[in-house]
């Protein structure tokens, strides 16, 4: 039987506010345990939550960016469950009245196809603390620094049909929140965590199969692998006549498998009710309009601008706009070079390779955009051949100075001058009468031999274009007939 997977993702996007969602403590990553947990976060008696204005603004910004409905009236609810890293015994979340309503995100697949993913809702909530199970025999250590960190939970409709689509959507969402500067996008530090709801059904069936939920996947690769594993697991069960149990599962990346954590409590068991400590949030049309006017250029718009105004290919534009840091760097270089294609080639080629080699992010690129720009300008004005340019680039990378300083200091200027090159070429022609005779006899391949000699004589600095022109000219003038017209 042919099976179809049905996948929905819930992504927790950690908002990059300076303070927590309901308290004035810092949500910064990496502090010593419990040094960023204030009485509100600890759930001490008598404390009250006060909502962070910036978290609200960021949520609205996200909603506007995906063309979603922004609810002018939203309510915070208590989601009740017991776990030691949740000191209050409930998580403040939004249930019946989320701040962001239905919207869509268009996702470009690698094969060029575009899929539209429905966003059911996005709501604000607080994060829980962390439990450390390993170091304390018989005990669990609790660090509440993360407690109260603002999260925007973005929930899709069950619109995704393959692990590849799920990853492409997750990447698109990642790019979007980074463009909006509402999340640092650091997956390794848990700034975006993904839960995947996965079920399978016979291809063509209307009814959804029983689903399982895979919790807390925190890398693009693991999203793909965990969902792939889960689809196969469910198909195996169904094909051997079994039934998929609705449950919550964990992905184990070491073993590449999902394991059941618990059979899912029914959602009613969280006993949501409006939090009496918080009043409803009313958003005015003026506030929403103000946030709308502050939206930056979004990935899709930037990509379209790159293909239409800069005449870049779809592939180049997609590559350059996926990460706002890359697109910003590209545009900064372009400001100096005024040559989009050559600039794109350098960024996608040498610059990207060097960053990858040294395991650096774009924001840490040691070559300032203006200097990569100057380097490219020197290629365009024929000071540098592409080979010499690579040498200059490595020197820029190593911090040896500006592009022009490096060209001067290392004598990397390309030889284009007809007089000087001509002298060198004439001498080579004189020294190699045998090859000249071969050339005259119509063996055009011998030209490569001469080019090689010229490059050797000039330590690779000769302008290859000029060398070819001069060789043809001078070899011709040495008696080679042009042959019949």
């Amino acid at each position, binding site marked *: 039987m042919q099976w179809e997977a049905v996948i929905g993702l819930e992504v927790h996007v950690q908002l990059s506010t300076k303070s927590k969602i309901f308290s004035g403590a810092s949500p910064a990553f990496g502090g010593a345990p419990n040094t960023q947990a204030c009485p509100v976060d600890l759930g001490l008696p008598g404390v009250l939550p006060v909502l962070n*204005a910036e978290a609200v603004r960021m949520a609205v910004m996200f909603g506007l960016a995906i063309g979603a409905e922004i609810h002018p009236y939203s309510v915070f609810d208590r989601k009740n469950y017991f776990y030691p890293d949740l000191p209050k015994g409930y998580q403040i979340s939004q249930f019946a009245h989320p701040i962001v309503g239905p919207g869509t995100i268009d996702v470009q697949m690698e094969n060029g196809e575009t899929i539209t993913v429905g966003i059911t809702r996005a709501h604000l909530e607080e994060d829980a603390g962390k439990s450390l199970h390993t170091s304390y025999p018989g005990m669990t250590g609790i660090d509440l620094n993360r407690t109260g960190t603002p999260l925007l939970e973005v929930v899709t409709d069950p619109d995704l049909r393959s692990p590849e689509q799920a990853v492409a959507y997750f990447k698109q969402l990642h790019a979007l929140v980074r463009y909006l500067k509402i999340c640092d996008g650091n997956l390794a530090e848990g700034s975006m965590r993904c839960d995947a709801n996965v079920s399978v059904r016979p291809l063509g069936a209307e009814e959804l199969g029983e689903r399982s939920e895979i919790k807390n996947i925190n890398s693009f690769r693991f999203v793909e692998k965990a969902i792939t594993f889960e689809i196969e697991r469910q198909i195996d069960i169904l094909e051997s006549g079994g039934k998929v149990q609705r449950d919550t599962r964990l992905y184990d990346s070491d073993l590449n498998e999902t394991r059941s954590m618990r059979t899912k409590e029914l959602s009613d068991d969280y006993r949501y009710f409006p939090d009496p400590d918080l009043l*409803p949030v009313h958003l005015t049309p003026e506030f929403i309009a103000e946030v709308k006017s502050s939206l930056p250029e979004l990935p899709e718009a930037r990509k379209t601008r790159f293909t239409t105004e800069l005449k870049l290919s779809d592939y180049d534009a997609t590559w350059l706009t996926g990460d706002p840091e890359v697109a910003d760097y590209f545009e900064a270089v372009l400001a100096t070079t005024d040559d989009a294609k050559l600039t794109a080639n350098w960024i996608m080629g040498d610059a990207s390779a060097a960053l990858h080699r040294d395991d650096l992010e774009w924001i840490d690129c040691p070559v300032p955009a203006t200097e990569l720009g100057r380097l490219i300008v020197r290629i365009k004005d024929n000071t540098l051949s592409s080979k010499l340019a690579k040498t200059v680039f490595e020197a820029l990378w190593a911090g040896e100075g500006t592009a022009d300083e490096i060209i001067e200091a290392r004598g990397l200027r390309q030889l284009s001058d007809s007089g000087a090159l001509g002298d060198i070429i004439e001498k080579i022609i004189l020294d190699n009468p045998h090859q000249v005779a071969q050339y005259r006899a119509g063996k055009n391949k011998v030209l490569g031999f001469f080019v090689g000699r010229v490059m050797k004589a000039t330590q690779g600095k000769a302008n290859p274009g000029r060398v070819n022109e001069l060789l043809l000219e001078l070899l011709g003038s040495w008696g080679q007939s042009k042959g019949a017209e």
Partner: protein
Amino acid sequence: MANIDINHLCRLAQLALNDAEHEAVRGDLERIIAMVDQMQAMNTDHVEPLAHPLDANQRLRRDEVTEVVDRERYQLGAPATQDGLYLVPRVVE
């Protein structure tokens, strides 16, 4: 009368009740549900659900770090701490 699963509710609420308490709670809940049933009988077709009893707007806080965390003091009331962590009886899912 609705069939109330007291054991399930006790598990959700993390309560351990003895038999006598069990029956007392059952009686209380039955009366509460009876009251809710009475409310359910009202026609609310044209009433918007009330999310909050106060018709006021949530005040927002400026996004600033204002809390100085005194971990030593906050942990004085904890039964067990180590390396800055609160220690609780082992929980493994």
